[in-house]
């Protein structure tokens, strides 16, 4: 009977799940992903977290609770840094401790550091430590690590090719994008943290809704690392949050692109880095772009009706603005 490892469907799951899964598969460890977000999962998370924490953290706690009684281990790496001299956010640094100190009767947490802050550090450190939980054979850990890196690259390439994280890999994800075959006449860039925009419950299915409104959706994850870093380099000081570097870079990139008609910036209430980058993006938009920008802040109290109203109004404005531009061009 092999051990089962639970992976919460939250935070950086959207970037690293294929890699983590491959790694555990190669070691013969069964993985269980928490269920898709529901009101119940979110409620549970809210109850076990301090009020001031941001929505993604509360949600992630909910997902941990969802896994708690079903698995032998919970995989909750402490994500310190995913790029040199950059961090994610202080809450990611303390997340395993927030979970451990607030929830009783947890299965053991696998909370080794994922830390690429220093020059020459590699993901292997993390995977070696994680692998040691299940095997003492360094060769098989290394092989699993190699395979996992390969699937990370495939995942990245897939995202760059325009697929969204929940569309790559697993078969059950393939039919999410039920193309209506209708005309998609505008392109909207959705800029936000992966755990906000790809979680169907939290984002209230925003991407699907935009498709239904006849829009093509592009996100920050379709840009290569070099592309978004080059764009983010326009800032007077390099941002030290990787995810926000990506968001700002993508926003700047899509502002310049003639085929993108509007941008939606999605932030969660109380998100520290977003409050900074949202401000920078907004100021940039006001100063040097004519593209419509919608700033959406979501939290556990966000109502669906309000969201729909704003999205519809935004879509109207995007089309209207473009129509005006077309008229202006013929004059």
């Amino acid at each position: 009977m092999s051990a089962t490892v639970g992976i919460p469907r939250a935070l950086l799951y959207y970037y690293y799940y294929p890699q983590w899964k491959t790694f555990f598969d190669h070691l013969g460890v069964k993985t269980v992903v928490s269920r898709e977000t529901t009101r119940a999962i979110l409620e549970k998370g809210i109850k076990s977290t301090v009020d001031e924490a941001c929505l993604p953290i509360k949600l992630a706690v909910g997902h941990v609770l969802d896994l708690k009684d079903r698995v032998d281990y919970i995989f909750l790496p402490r994500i310190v840094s995913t790029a040199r001299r950059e961090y994610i956010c202080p809450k990611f640094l303390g997340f395993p401790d927030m979970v451990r100190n607030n929830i009783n009767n947890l299965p053991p947490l696998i909370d080794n550091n994922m830390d690429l802050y220093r020059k020459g550090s590699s993901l292997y450190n993390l995977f070696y430590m994680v692998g040691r939980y299940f095997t003492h054979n360094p060769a098989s850990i290394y092989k699993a690590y190699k395979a996992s890196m390969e699937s990370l690259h495939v995942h990245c390439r897939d995202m760059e090719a325009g697929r969204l994280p929940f569309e790559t890999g697993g078969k059950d994800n393939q039919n999410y994008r039920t193309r209506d075959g209708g005309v998609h006449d505008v392109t909207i860039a959705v800029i936000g943290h992966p755990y906000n925009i790809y979680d169907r419950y939290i984002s209230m299915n925003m991407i699907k809704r935009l498709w239904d409104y006849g829009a093509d959706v592009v996100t920050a994850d379709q840009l290569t690392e070099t592309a978004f870093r080059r764009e983010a380099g326009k800032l007077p000081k390099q941002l030290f949050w990787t995810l926000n570097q990506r968001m700002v870079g993508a926003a700047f990139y899509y502002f310049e692109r003639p085929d993108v008609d509007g941008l939606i910036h999605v932030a969660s209430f109380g998100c520290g880095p977003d409050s900074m980058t949202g401000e920078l993006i907004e100021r940039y938009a006001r100063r040097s772009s004519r593209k419509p920008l919608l700033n959406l802040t979501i939290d556990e109290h966000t109502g669906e009706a309000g969201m729909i109203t704003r999205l519809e109004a935004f879509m109207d404005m995007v089309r209207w603005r473009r129509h005006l531009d077309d008229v202006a061009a013929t004059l």
Partner: protein
Amino acid sequence: MKVVYPHMGHMWICVKAMLEYLDVEVVVPPPSSKKTLLLGVKHAPEFACMPLKLNLGNFMEAAEMGADTIVMAGGCGPCRFGYYAHVEHAILRDLGYRYQLVVLEPPQKHIGELLGKIKHITGHQSWRRVINGIRFGYHKAEAVDQLEKMSHYCRPRETRAGATDRALQSALREIIAVDRPEKLPAALNNAMGMMNAVSLDKQRPVLRIGLVGEIYTLLEPFSNLDIERKLGGMGVEVDRSIYLSEWINEHLFMGLKKNKGGSKLAKQKAIKYLGHSVGGHGLETVGSTVLYAERGYDGVIQLLPFTCMPEIVAQSILPRVSTELGIPVMTLIVDEQSGEAGLVTRLEAFVDLLARRKQTGKVLA
């Protein structure tokens, strides 16, 4: 060039001393007030924390007094403060202020970046003089901290209400007036004499509360609604986990001056509960709480500005520390909506609880 820097408690005293020693013209903005905060809130991002809003207000008020260069500390994450200077600068520029920005922070590529900035501010002073200036500022910070510590001791024990505050004000004036390093020891002596002259009732039983949390809200009385004085008035002896001179010693001098209280011990104590630094003072908050519990304090109050990320991590860990070590902990979150009456009510309730706890503890023993 007229230099302005943001307020943080009594920090202005030591920075002013340092810059004026180096012949730099300084504009000290008016003390943070409701007006400062209103200015900041109006133009700052909604979810930025209170320090950013107050800084912004400071700069706007200083611009009216003729300041044209901002000198600010920076940082390299993960706390947001590292990016504040640039966001504030962008906001000010859009509002039409023409400020030059100099951010002092750990250099990204080469130490020359930092040295160049210092040269830029100080003009063509010799490095020797620059170092002397920094030392002068540091010694002033030490002096101010010492006076503050004395006031924490005196306030709950004073026999005439308000005597400590008056003594502290005149003692600080003594320190502020010093313009040459060699005059500082005498002035400090004088100032300490003033503090010692406060008549005290040393037998009076007092409660002891440790203040932990985010550095700005701890040091800036306007942002924490003067919590130290309020607690003092309720008969509580306060100890702060962070003092400016300790912070300078640790972060700017890399612990050059030994045997000075610092956060190293606190960080070691925190490891059991929080396994990694989370930026800001999150780790110190947890560790200091452990230390206060071990030193037999009656309670701990955590202060943080709304949406402060490192402190939220600490906040969610403190309940466990509190139950395991049996020390009551209260978290106070401040922002532009904070009201004085609400704070006083909570403080009174907390102090009552601690007093009662102490009493029953004695009876049981």
